[in-house]
């Protein structure tokens, strides 16, 4: 049977013998996931802040919807994006199916609700403290949003990391819209699924260890950036 010692040593060998194939797969994973997180933040941060800071009709409904969408099943998102991008679908002429762009779109749909819903919570709490001050300064709505997002930036880094975690670990959606094409749309998670289906379980798990190391590195970099930014701000 399998021993975890073997799996760890296989992972170690994979990392030691780091080849072009692995760089390609790891690079594409990072490219797709980070692009999706960036797009999700561009949409989700202002959206979440607006829902968090302002009172408007339908706000409760919007909150419930955003929270519920955090649980979107990746396979369903994958199917939806496939139907949109298929040659027979409305966006077929763009020819985005089976490209990294399709994977970025699918992951953006998955991650945006997470960023928006968590941002809403962070901003809502902060707005409670700032509301009177904002009113006395006579700030316009967009200035309030900007101020709230800026002051909450350290908490929002964690929000972005939550989105990153969801995207980098996801396989159902990218498998359908990317097609797991070698050298084109093959990422860490789809490679793990492929190796599992070939019965190469040790290799699959070893790749999983590499993915985990990657996630730890990204988190460490963000935390280091945050720490140095905090030091600079309060020095």
């Amino acid at each position: 049977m399998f021993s975890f010692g073997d799996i760890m040593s296989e992972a170690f060998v994979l990392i030691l013998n780091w080849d072009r194939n692995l760089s390609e797969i790891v690079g594409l994973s990072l490219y797709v996931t980070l692009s999706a997180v960036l797009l999700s933040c561009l949409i989700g941060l202002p959206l979440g802040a607006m829902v968090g800071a302002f009172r408007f009709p339908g706000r409760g409904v919007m909150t419930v919807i955003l929270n519920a969408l955090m649980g979107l099943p990746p396979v369903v998102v994958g199917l939806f994006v496939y139907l949109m991008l298929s040659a027979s679908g409305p966006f077929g002429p763009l020819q985005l199916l089976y490209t990294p762009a399709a994977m970025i779109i699918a992951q953006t749909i998955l991650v945006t609700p997470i960023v928006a819903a968590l941002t809403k919570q962070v901003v809502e709490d902060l707005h409670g403290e700032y509301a009177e001050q904002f009113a006395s300064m006579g700030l316009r709505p967009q200035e309030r949003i900007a101020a709230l997002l800026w002051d909450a930036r350290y908490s929002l880094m964690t929000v972005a990391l939550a989105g990153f975690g969801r995207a980098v670990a996801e396989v159902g959606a990218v498998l359908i819209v990317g097609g797991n094409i070698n050298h084109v749309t093959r990422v860490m998670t789809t490679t793990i699924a492929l190796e599992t289906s070939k019965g190469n379980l040790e290799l699959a798990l070893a790749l999983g260890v590499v993915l985990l190391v990657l996630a730890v590195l990204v988190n460490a970099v963000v935390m280091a950036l945050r720490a140095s930014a905090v030091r600079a701000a309060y020095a």
Partner: protein
Amino acid sequence: MLRRHLFSLAAGAALALGLSGAAQAQDQFIVVQSTTSTQNSGLFDHILPIFQDKTGIEVRVVAVGTGQAIKNAENGDGDVLFVHAKAAEEKFVAEGHGLQRSDVMYNDFILVGPPNDPAGIAGTTDIVAALTKIAETGATFASRGDDSGTHKAELKLWKEAGIDAAAASGDWYRETGSGMGATLNTGTAMGAYVLTDRATWISFGNKGDYQIAVEGDDRLFNQYGIILVNPEKHENVKAEAGQAFIDWVLSAEGQQAIADYKIDGQQLFFPNANG
């Protein structure tokens, strides 16, 4: 102002995505909708570089079950269909989704089972009799259950045996609803018999103590076919490059490349384009 800002950001992002898609479309490549057996066995890794060196055409393979591959090709999401379910392929052509269908190669299905052989069928060659025994003894059988080529072949065999296996679904008949490799992983773990194509089995890395129980029946023949997706139905189909790939696969050189592919000295696919 904020809203305008957001809009321009979104438009910029959409443009960037669109551009990256368009840039990729300029390269010479085709998409082949194919099956997990051809991909997982490593056949494509062996023959595609030869074709690309010769023609400069990159072949991108989407490997899914035959049922899904046909559906994707019907939607126009691919230039060439390369699968193994002759009846479904002929229907695909008859309905106008594809042009002419050609035989490419064959291998065979085998029934693999646990060493204790609960149905007592190891070493036999009559697949229908073996399936009947499995049903009679209630030995566990793991089915793909995913409308793939292998699944269609399996259903045909149950029909020949006159057994309604689906009625026992959840009991001794387990439908995994997943690919060949995943079904082998599940089946070997639960001590079930599994019908698999020989290529996937030879290249499968998690066999455990499993052995081939039944092989050599004519009814276990597994034919692969290739079809160009109809460019009149889907104008995005790259008919010229797709046809070039089909012509090469059917040519003496392509057929030889298929025959040359071996794992541990065993040939996985047998070309038969002209027979």
